[in-house]
């Protein structure tokens, strides 16, 4: 009962927060959107990184696949992003499957390094094929303010769009945790060989987790493109962003709502430092890094668990 209650509180809070912020502090509304954006990215990452234990420093590559697919479909073929986002998701799923078939057999730091290289490859390719992607100059989406084009003049629209995607990511996490797949993924994380000995096709389940994570990340990519109406290779398929996604989930933890807490906390924190010390560029990240070190050393299983156990 308590678990159900907690889920309901979180979901309710997530739905109410954008409206409340819109009314109370409209000038900071974009902070809420960014919090949700990072929370969603962390939640999607958690499916592979948290449940399966395969740390990826490459998830922003799938953000780029999603953002570029829906944008190019819209610009070149007038396909609405409402459709394009699912195409992007599918394309990211296929990409992750191909990558996963080769690299998921790598363990620990080796998988981390391969995913790290993968983002860079995607970024370089997006920058290279200028005739399609307009290279490093990036692509600009036309301002239509039409809901059919997944655009709106009302920021609340974007707040609820990303809240919807975030809740989808959390729901997928929840569904997995309650399913056979979830049991198998935890078993793989705890001891892959022992899972194999019981008849678990570990390669298949790891690939499934990877594909799901990539699919959700690509949906967030379409949101990103529609929200900013401007995408570049370095802003999407970016190593720093990839690392930030992983950090959100590591700082939060691997429980259902932990990456959400991580995303809200870290973005809130970054915003706070920026507001307090606007004159010193780099300070927010430097402090962020120190905080990260403190969390890793003091509470290695994540803030969420720490809060649950101590407060």
């Amino acid at each position, binding site marked *: 009962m308590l678990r159900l209650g907690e889920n309901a509180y979180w979901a309710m809070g997530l739905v109410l927060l954008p409206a409340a912020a819109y009314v109370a502090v409209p000038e900071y509304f974009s902070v809420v959107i960014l919090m949700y954006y990072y929370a969603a990215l962390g939640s999607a990452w958690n499916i592979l990184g948290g449940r399966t234990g395969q740390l990826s420093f490459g998830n922003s590559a799938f953000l780029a696949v999603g953002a570029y697919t829906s944008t190019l479909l819209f610009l070149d073929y007038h396909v609405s992003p409402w459709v394009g986002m699912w195409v992007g998701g599918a394309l990211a799923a296929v990409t992750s499957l191909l990558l996963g078939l080769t690299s998921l057999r790598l363990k620990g730091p080796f998988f981390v390094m391969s995913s790290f290289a993968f983002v860079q490859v995607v970024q370089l390719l997006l920058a290279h094929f200028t005739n399609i992607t307009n290279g490093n100059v990036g692509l600009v989406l036309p301002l239509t303010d039409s809901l059919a084009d997944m655009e709106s003049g009302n920021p609340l629209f974007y707040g609820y769009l990303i809240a919807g995607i975030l809740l989808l990511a959390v729901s997928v996490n929840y569904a997995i945790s309650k*399913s056979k797949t979830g049991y198998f993924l935890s078993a793989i994380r705890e*001891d892959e060989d022992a*899972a194999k*000995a*019981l*008849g678990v*096709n570990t390669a298949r389940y790891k690939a499934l987790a990877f594909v799901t994570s990539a699919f959700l990340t690509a949906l967030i990519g379409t949101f990103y493109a529609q929200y900013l109406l401007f995408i570049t290779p370095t802003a999407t398929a970016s190593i720093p962003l990839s690392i930030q996604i992983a950090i959100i989930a590591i700082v939060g933890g691997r429980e259902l709502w932990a990456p959400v807490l991580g995303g809200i906390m870290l973005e809130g924190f970054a915003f706070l430092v920026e507001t307090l010390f606007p004159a010193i560029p780099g300070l927010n990240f430097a402090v962020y890094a120190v905080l990260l070190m403190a969390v890793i050393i003091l509470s290695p299983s994540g803030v969420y668990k720490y809060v649950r156990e101590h407060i």
Partner: protein
Amino acid sequence: MLQVKGITKKFGGVAALNSVSFDVGKGEVFAIIGPNGSGKTTLFNVVAGFHKPDGGSISFEGKDITGWQPFRVAQAGIARSFQNTRPFPDLTTLDNVVVGALTRHRNIREARSKAEEVMATVGLGGAAGMQAKNLSIQDRKRLEVAKAIATSPRLLLLDEPMAGLTGEEIPDFVSLIKRLNESGMTILLIEHVLYAITKVADRLMVMDNGNKLAEGAPGDIMNDSRVLKAYIGEDDA
């Protein structure tokens, strides 16, 4: 049921297994004994798919399973336990067993009730909610068997299930193995505790230095001078 023919396995040029052959019949309890380092565990790993053999073949219920991946071997109906127990440490004891049961059941509820049944069989019912990493050595041994039998195997491979148990605990485990056997499972086990083996095994195979030394009924084997020599040690060493 299981035919192992001429299995050879080399590590770094050294033969860990040298053309080992044996058959296990349906319903049997077949035991492999031998000193540490004689190749028993390597043989297990080859049968269960964790090592690819350099020569020879393995067939199970008529199918050639040589070189199959471990999860396929398990799905074919062969489950194994590890000598150094391999629980999923952060999961509860029950969830550990549920993972095994889920490889046969689609539905979580069914898997859970199967797991509970298995836990009762091995005598772990009281520890269901405990994290596996906190179990005692004896309970870890039980959990290791529970995980394996939750996959409803027809052939159960047990790697030194009684190592780490005391003289008083061994009879319990012997009767567990007997019960499992009576319920229709064929059992292949490696064991170091000799007198326990003689009580449970229908047939024995003795290994030494990667070679099969002898095979036969427990009574005959225990009186074989070569076996005693390999086990107790040479007189003049």
